[in-house]
Structure formats: structure tokens, C-alpha cells
């Protein structure tokens, strides 16, 4: 994209001084200005944040997400970070809302939205990380200075507990699809790694950019929210770009080959985006997110014979081709696989067409005190209705999957992910709270 195009885009958004490139209104440099991207960090003037925290400015200028490092547009009908091409890194955080005051919660969501607009565009939060009052801590924590936007996306979700009676008057607005997930056989859920009133999924190609975003949102939220649990992820285990090879999970296998493509709007409308006819009107354009922390018994897996490993998945380890086929993307012949094979059980054909969009990441959180890697898959699945997506699928897998010998679900959460933020006056959750 040329500078001319960028300037034109900015003028469309009402920028007055499109020539003033490198700093925003307070003189705090943006991350991209530091990179010397002329014309990028336009001063668009201050926007009141509607709360106690200093005003944040919106300086989002459109850069295509095609090249890694660029910015993914924050505004749109759907939230970025779902159908968006999967980035390399994840920092996911679930929050408890600690305030009892609905107005405070709304103010927080507005402040978060403004901060998210800035960070996803590659700008520092508020007045930046330096150059402010010597006696006050800086608005931005600073560790992303000098880094590219790195395709950062921030995606918010609302957990069932937020809709509980007597909390924020939302009990009548809880969507039917936001069910309390049933207990599945084999689950060993840790309450301290499960649930949450809110979640934010930060995906980026640079882990520091993702961590920076969660850290700043957590800080802005203090007193109104507190982090309940969080998860770092380092290797995407599925992609929404079918042209690319499916990445491997920690077991060394390709899994989720038949993921929904981010460009397949028909499939997204059918399986991922909540439609206008679905009951909770405020969720139109949104989706439902299931997050599961799946611990892998890495050491025992590594002692399993190759044949067993391939039988468990129903694919070969080298190419990733389904049993009896040559290429990864060849149509699987399910009956050639063992009845307990993972691919056979997870396939839409075995589940009355149930299809989910996967965005999981591998994790390794050190060791567990018994000398075993605390590693596995942080499973993230988006769907139009969890009752028709994850729940029947997991019922089948939990009951029959041969993989169960080597994995255990240890954390679980479910969130209603609202539609996208349309423009600079809109905010995360407006349709729910209005």
C-alpha cells in the first residue's frame, strides 16, 4: 500500500492533519512511527475514554494483513481473530469481573475497546510509554515499543457467569447457546484454569506483542476485573488458510486439516457466525468460543510404537494423509480407520455434519514437579451454536477416542463472542449492554 492510499484512508476517517506523521496528539510516538513508517501514525485527535483512565486516541490506519507484521483492521462486522488467518502466537486471558457496578463494567469495556484499537494498529496505549510526567507511571508498559503490529488481533468473549442473576441485570440476555458445558468422561478440570466472566484472546506473530496487549488490558481493568487464569500458546495447531500446510501438534501429527477456511464465507455463515434468526439478537455476527486446556501425556506418547500412534490419529505421521490415502488433503475414507481413530470420530460425517472452526495452540508451561512436561494443546473452537458444535463432538470423542489414553482435559471455558466493533464510536459489547 502506498502512502497516498494510507493518507486517503485516514482522511476518510476525518483526520485533519494527515501530514503530521510520526507522533500522536501528545507527542508520544507510536510503535510504527518508531519504525519510520512515514504516514502511518496519524494524529486523529483525542477521543474521550468515558472513564477515569486518560483518554486514548484512535489512530487506526488501514494496512493489509497480508504481510506478517502488518496491522489487521480492528473494526468490522465480525471481531478479528476468528476467521483471520491464524497468527503464530497466543496469549489468552480469562477475567473475573470484580466490580458489582454495571456502569463501571461498561466504562471498562469502552476503555478496553479504545486501547485495543490502538494496540492492534501498532500504537502505544494512552500517552505512551515515555515522555510523560516524571512522577507518574507511564500509560503504556512499553515492551512493544519498536515492534511491528505483528497482525495482533484482540477478541473479547462473555462467559455464562456474567449473566448470572443479581449481577448486572443480564440474566434475560443470556443466549440459549451459551450453555453450561456438560461434564465429559475423563475430564479432570481445575477450577483455577476454568471459566471466567470475560476473556480476551490475543493472537500475534510476535509473542511479546500478544503479551503486551493482555498485560495492558489487565492493568486498565484493575479494580474492575482481575485475571482469573491465562494461557500462552506458541505453535498454531490449525490454520484458516487451506492453501498452507496444516501445522503439527505436540504429538507430531497434523490435526484439523479440514478446518473452515477464513475466506469461505458460506461455511462461516453456516457454522461460525450467529445469524439474525438465532435467538439472542445482540449476538448477530458473533460466535461461541470453547476453550479447553488439554494436557498431553507426552512421555508415554513418545514411548508408543509408530503404528499405534498412526492408528490413534488415523493418519500417517510423515505426510499426514488419512489411512489408505497419499496426500494430507485427500478425502478420508473413514471406514478404513479404526473405530476409535481420532480423525474418524471428529469428522463431520460422524457427527451429523457438526463443524467447528479451530484456532488452537500448543503450550508448554515448564514441568509438573514430577519431571513431566506440562504440555499439550490449548484448544480454541468457534462455532455458531456450541450445542450443535463442540458438545456433540466432544461427547463422541470423550467416549471413544483412542487418543484419550494420552490426553486429559484439565481446563474448560465457554464464551459468547459478540459481533465486531463497527467504528470508533462503537465498543465491545454495546449491543449486549444497550
Amino acid at each position: 500500500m502506498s502512502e497516498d492510499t494510507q493518507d486517503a484512508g485516514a482522511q476518510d476517517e476525518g483526520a485533519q492533519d494527515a501530514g503530521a506523521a510520526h507522533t500522536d496528539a501528545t507527542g508520544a510516538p507510536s510503535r510504527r512511527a518508531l519504525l519510520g513508517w512515514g504516514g502511518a501514525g496519524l494524529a486523529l485527535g483525542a477521543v474521550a475514554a468515558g472513564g477515569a483512565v486518560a483518554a486514548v486516541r484512535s489512530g487506526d490506519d488501514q494496512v493489509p494483513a497480508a504481510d506478517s507484521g502488518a496491522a489487521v483492521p480492528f473494526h468490522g462486522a465480525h471481531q478479528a481473530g476468528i476467521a483471520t488467518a491464524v497468527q503464530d502466537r497466543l496469549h489468552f486471558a480469562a477475567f473475573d469481573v470484580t466490580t458489582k457496578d454495571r456502569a463501571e463494567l461498561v466504562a471498562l469495556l469502552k476503555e478496553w475497546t479504545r486501547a485495543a484499537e490502538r494496540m492492534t494498529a501498532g500504537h502505544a496505549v494512552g500517552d505512551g510509554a515515555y515522555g510523560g510526567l516524571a512522577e507518574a507511571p507511564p500509560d503504556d508498559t512499553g515492551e512493544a515499543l519498536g515492534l511491528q503490529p505483528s497482525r495482533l488481533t484482540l477478541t473479547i468473549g462473555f462467559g455464562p457467569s456474567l449473566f448470572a442473576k443479581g449481577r448486572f441485570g443480564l440474566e434475560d440476555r443470556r443466549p440459549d447457546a451459551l450453555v453450561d458445558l456438560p461434564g465429559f468422561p475423563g475430564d479432570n478440570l481445575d477450577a483455577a484454569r476454568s471459566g471466567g466472566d470475560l476473556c480476551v484472546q490475543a493472537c500475534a506473530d510476535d509473542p511479546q506483542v500478544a503479551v503486551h496487549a493482555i498485560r495492558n488490558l489487565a492493568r486498565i481493568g484493575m479494580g474492575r476485573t482481575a485475571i482469573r487464569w491465562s494461557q500462552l500458546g506458541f505453535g498454531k495447531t490449525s490454520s484458516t488458510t487451506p492453501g498452507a500446510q496444516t501445522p503439527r501438534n505436540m504429538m507430531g501429527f497434523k490435526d484439523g486439516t479440514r478446518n473452515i477456511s477464513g475466506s469461505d464465507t458460506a461455511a462461516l455463515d453456516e457454522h461460525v457466525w450467529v445469524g439474525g434468526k438465532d435467538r439472542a439478537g445482540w449476538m448477530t455476527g458473533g460466535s461461541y468460543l470453547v476453550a479447553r486446556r488439554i494436557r498431553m501425556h507426552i512421555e508415554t506418547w513418545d514411548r508408543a510404537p509408530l503404528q499405534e500412534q498412526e492408528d490413534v490419529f488415523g493418519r500417517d505421521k510423515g505426510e499426514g494423509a488419512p489411512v489408505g490415502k497419499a496426500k494430507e488433503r485427500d478425502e478420508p475414507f473413514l471406514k478404513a480407520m479404526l473405530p476409535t481413530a481420532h480423525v474418524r470420530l471428529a469428522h463431520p460425517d460422524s457427527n451429523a455434519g457438526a463443524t467447528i472452526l479451530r484456532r488452537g495452540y500448543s503450550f508448554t508451561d515448564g514441568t509438573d514437579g514430577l519431571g513431566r512436561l506440562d504440555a499439550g494443546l490449548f484448544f480454541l473452537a468457534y462455532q455458531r451454536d456450541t450445542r450443535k458444535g463442540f458438545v456433540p463432538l466432544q461427547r463422541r470423542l470423550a467416549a471413544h477416542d483412542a487418543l484419550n489414553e494420552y490426553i486429559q482435559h484439565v481446563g474448560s471455558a465457554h464464551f459468547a463472542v459478540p459481533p465486531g466493533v463497527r467504528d470508533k464510536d462503537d465498543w465491545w459489547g454495546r449491543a449486549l449492554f444497550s
Partner: protein
Amino acid sequence: MRAVRLSVVTAAATVAALTAVTGCAEKSDGKGDGAVQVVAKDDSCEVSKKKLPAGHVELAVQNKGSKVTEVYVLFPDDRIVAERENIGPGTKATITAEIKAGSYEIACKPGMKGHGIRQKLEISGGSAAKRSPEMDKAVAAYRTYVQDQADATLPKAKLFTDAVAAGDIEAAKKVYAESRLGWERTEPVAESFGDIDPKVDVRADGLEDGQKWTGWHRLEKALWQDKKLGAEEKALAPTLQKDLLDWQKRVGTAEITPTSMANGAKELLDEVATGKVTGEEERYSHTDLIDFKANVEGAEKSYELLKPIASKNDAALSATLDKRFAELNNLLDTYRKDKTSYEFTSYEKVGKADRKDLSDAVNALAEPLSRLAAAVTK
């Protein structure tokens, strides 16, 4: 264990050398041309001159009263420029100091107690940076608070150290936590001296190579973990008392500014966030919640005194702080018998989830509190 952040935003006067008495031989008789005659009586403090040029200032003090007295030269915020204690009835003393231009006070304290009898002293010449009277008022009130806390601590600490010296484990355990309240309330000021904290409040893991472990926590370990008081522990009791006496005498000279008060309040919460919510501070006695409460009380005092200034500059911030202090105090109240008692639940009985709630409440307060200094200096 952290030095308080000292700001240069302070009265434009340097601390005079208290040792100057011996360094000014030519005027040591107290009758030099420039000397200010101070006549101290039981109910008066007469000063011969109230306006002087900046530079070397000498006070010639005569105690014509019946009580032992002390005389101070004070900054507008009550920090000590120079002082002389133990001036007996009928005796004379000399106080010297290098003083920059500005407004000062001379205070005589018959009986060596209280606020003293005050006289103004104007020093002219040069340029004096002015601080607003309301800031001076806040600092002076905080200095009084800090001194009061130290004064109140000494007798309580003595109960503790006497019990230790006598080998009475039960009596010592009973007064241990309470003997620390005043210290914990004003810790950033005490830590600003650098040398006292490592003697009285160091934990085993804070010791430097070759440093002898003394102070409260050394005795805490003896009482709760070793469950015995040997000759070595008994000998540490008077050392603690002596070190605390040193603190009590020096708090008046601490450099305190509105911003150091604000940041000191935040630092007290930092102490809670890093040492108390983890249970590291009182690892043997598990009296962490008492320290916790004292830290919060000290932070709240700083805030209350700065609030008139802060609320003018940032009303939203002070509203948030009022709310968060109340929330944290309410939460702490659920861990004690009643609102006047300092008997708190033993921290080993506070579960993981409850510790997280406490931690969240501390973060909720400390985050806006970190913006108090900016609101004061605006």
C-alpha cells in the same frame, strides 16, 4: 527493604550539619555578632532576631525555665534543620546551621515533649523556591504522624524485647505483631535512612554476606520455629530496642515531600503485594494480615493528607481511591474480630482463593494509587 523515592521538589534549603558546633570555633561562645539569642522558659521561647541573611546561622540558647528543654530550627513542613536536646535548666547551648533563604520556625520544647513553643524565622537573600502552604501543611502533618508512630512503637517494642530478654516465649509472642504496627505504617520513611531497616526488619533471605541477622524476624523465628530463646536471642532484644530508638530520634530529619508521601503510599501497597499476600513476611508467626492492615493504614494516612490537593487536580482519581480504600478495608475487616481489634486470622489459615481476592483488592487500590503523585504535582 526499598529506599523511598525522594524528590527534589522540596524546600530550597539544605540540611545543616548538626556537627557544626565543633566546626565553628570562632563563634562557639554563642556571643558572636550574628548569633540569635534564644531564651527558653517553661512557657515561652524568646528570640532576639526574626530576620537574618542566608548562610551561617547561630543560635545561642539559654534555658531559664525549670524543665529540661530542646530547641529546633524547622522547615515549614516541620523537617528539622538543626536541633539540640537535653538543655538542662540554667544551662546554655549553641546551635549552628547553614540555612538558605526561606521561612523557618524556631521551636522550644520544655520537657522535651509536644509541638513546642514556636517563633518565626525569616532568612533572606538568594532565591528561595516556594512550595504551596497546603503542601507544607500536608507534609508537616505527615511528619507529625510519622513521629507519633515511632513514639508509640518504642514502649510496645520494649514490652516485646523485655519479654524476649526474660526468656518469656508466650509473653513475647503475644506482643510481637503489635510491636511492629507503627513501623509498618511508616515503613517508607524508616527505609529512607537506609541503615535502620536492615537491622530491625530484615528476613533471613535478605541478609548480605557476613551480615549478622538481627531484629524482629530473627526473634520471630526463635519464638515460632525454634521455640526457644537462648542467650544469643536474649542478647538481640536490647539491640532491637537500641536500633528502634535510633529510628525514633531520626524520623524528624527524614526528607518528606508531597510526592514522596504519595509514592510512599504506593510503596506500602507494594510491600503488601510482594511480601504480605504471599505470606513471606511473617513466615513463622503468620501474622501477615496485621502488617498488611498497618501498611494500608499508613498509605491511607498519606492519601488523606494529600487529598485536599489531589481532589482539586483529579477529582475522579480521589473518588476511585476513596472507593478502593473502603473496599480493601472492608475485605480486611472480614479477617478480624471487630473493627478495633488487631487480632487477625493467622495467614496460614487463609486459603489460596482468599489470598487471590486479597491480592486482587491490593492491585485494585495500588494501580490508581500509583497516579496520586502526578495528581499532587500537576
